[in-house]
């Protein structure tokens, strides 16, 4: 792969004469900013909860499940939890899926989660640290 730069690029080849900002520089800066923004949203919380929100998951009811988690954080006093949505991971017959990642532990993926089971997960797993093995996809 050649390292030739085309004349049409907006920065000159004469590095050292003046500092040029390349697209790679820009994107690295953006990445750093993005990471800090994510951390600002609570990514470094002890527990990260991901609820699948693709069309197939929503059709199986994952939007209700998401609402349970959201309400738990905003109204139910659940703290130190980073909640996010994720795309479809391919486990179609076991949707809705919820993934819980805790630092230092193996991620736990739950399948066939209903709003009731979601509440259970909040009470038992998130608040008390109990992994509900019957619902784990393995």
């Amino acid at each position, binding site marked *: *792969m*050649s*390292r*030739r*730069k*085309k004349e*049409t*690029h*907006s*920065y000159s080849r004469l590095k050292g004469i003046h500092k040029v*900002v*390349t*697209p*790679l520089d*820009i*994107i*690295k800066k*953006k*990445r750093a900013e*993005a*990471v800090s*923004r*994510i951390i600002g949203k609570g990514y470094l919380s002890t527990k990260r909860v991901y609820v*699948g929100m*693709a*069309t*197939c998951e*929503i059709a199986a009811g994952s939007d209700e499940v998401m609402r349970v988690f959201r309400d738990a954080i905003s109204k139910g006093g659940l703290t130190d939890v980073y909640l*996010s*949505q*994720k*795309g*479809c*991971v*391919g*486990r*179609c*017959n*076991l949707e809705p899926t919820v*993934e819980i990642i805790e630092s*230092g*532990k*193996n*991620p*736990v*993926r739950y399948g066939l989660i209903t709003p009731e089971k979601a509440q259970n997960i909040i009470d038992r797993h998130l608040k008390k640290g109990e992994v509900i093995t019957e619902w784990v*996809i*393995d």
Partner: protein
Amino acid sequence: MGKEYVVTLCEGPSCIHKGSRRLRQLLEKKLEKHGIAGKVRTFLSGCLGMCAKGPIMVINPGYVIYGGVTVDDVDEIVEQHLIKDNPVARLTVKESHLYNRFFRVFGDAKFFGKQMRIALRNCGIIDPESIEDYLSLRGYEALAKVLTDMTPEDVIEELKKSGLRGRGGAGFPTGLKWQFTRAAESDEKYVICNADEGDPGAFMDRSAIEGDPHTVIEGMAIGAYAIGANKGYMYIRAEYPLAIERIQKAIDDAKKHGILGDNILGSDFSFDVEIKLGAGAFVCGEETALIHSIEGYRGMPRPRPPYPSVKGLFDKPTLINNVETWANIPVVIIDGGDWFSKVGVGKSNGTKVFAVAGRIVNTGLVEVPMGTTLREIIYDICGGIPGNKKFKAVQTGGPSGGCLPEDFLDTSIDYESLAEVGSIMGSGGMIVIDEDSCMVQMAEFFLEFTQSESCGKCTPCREGTKRMLEILTRISKGKGQDGDIEKLERLGHMIQKASLCGLGQSAPNPVLSTLKNFRDEYKEHIYNSKCRAGQCKAMLSYLITDNCIGCGACLRACPVDAITGNKKEKHLINQDICIKCGKCYEVCKFDAVAKS
């Protein structure tokens, strides 16, 4: 309670060669010996992409990677790491960026072990509506690298080295297509993403867009740079509202960050993407019909040559690729065409996403390296046929593909091998069929679809598929005639060779492949009035056997009052009235209703 570990050993060809299976056996023995077998689970995974450093062992939590593990190291690993929680430094291999991205979705290693997620690398990991998530995982780095260090010719060279082939079904070498489009001289060029995904039951592209829209946009931008285009179109079917919403948000977010639009990332390159919605036509997944649709005309294909790379959208050179192809591009750029070409087998490099559906335990989306066998996907990854039923066939390629019986389960999944056995890779649909499905009805279902979606322009497809369908319907209704099979084959071969576009050319494939592989079933339908799967109602009759004790449950359940009988006496089904709904069969507790 001590920590629980998951140990994964790479079972890629290179690591097997270096003894990874033996390692696993030894490891399990040691775990037993130390009494911690209950806390440590071991798995074998597909190739993790670090063959030079093999055999690879990964221990989680912590993503600790050991390389070059030998049988002598096992004791130390067990004692130091798994018991005392001290990773063994001398064996630890620096976390390669390859590994970090491809084997994130683990913990469900039975399902993901043999997969290799390249196109779907971020699906299920990031929030698709967050450009921050995408950026944090090296998003748009490939585009930045291209704009900083590479000329368009460099990009195309990398694509050619990778051996990536179009994932929409045709499998045309992507690098070559980019080269042709670049070579065509014009003041304006276009880039199109084909997200029309019309195959019934296919959802690979939808998942890719709903799970990781930015990677498609990044791929399109790189493609536009390579061929010299400044405008792109995302042609997405209107039946995917969430995907449309997410890709629109991705476009808007990218624009806000200066990653799309004028002077991308401060360079001279400008590129913008517009969304065009489909209107419910399967034929608009064909590239020339798609182009007509974007231009505002009726979606009908036109003869090629000239190819879209020379004369496409608005008569300008156009690069049109499938969603999955675009999703692979950033990986090819970052990890290099050389690395990509090592994944896969023969002339089929990289991975392919399949939507596995039908009579299977784990329906889902899988992405496997080319060369994986059908058996591995169906039985290892997706758990085989539920209910102890017998496998009958697997249909690959959607309505354009063929049905392969058990003998072909060990076929390697790559373009050439599948074509050799009479099917196609297609866009990735894979439907598993068990003994309870009728192959004639299967063929009829697909042909009905293609006939109703035929644009009507060319005679063989418009008229020929209809006549084939009439014959098939007759056969499934028990009115098959001598000579019908020959007529189907005569029409089928003519339609394959004489049709204008891929829809027509592949419409007879399900019929012809089932005729080839399941000819006996057809013959039974025609000559013996028998449907061995028990699906064709016309040839089905329900009878009450001597097991009947006269409980009357069937009489009450029958929706058309076809059953007569007195209490405690054997009942009788009137065949003239019976509509073969099967309700009596369902409710009988005494096994007294027989299907024949």
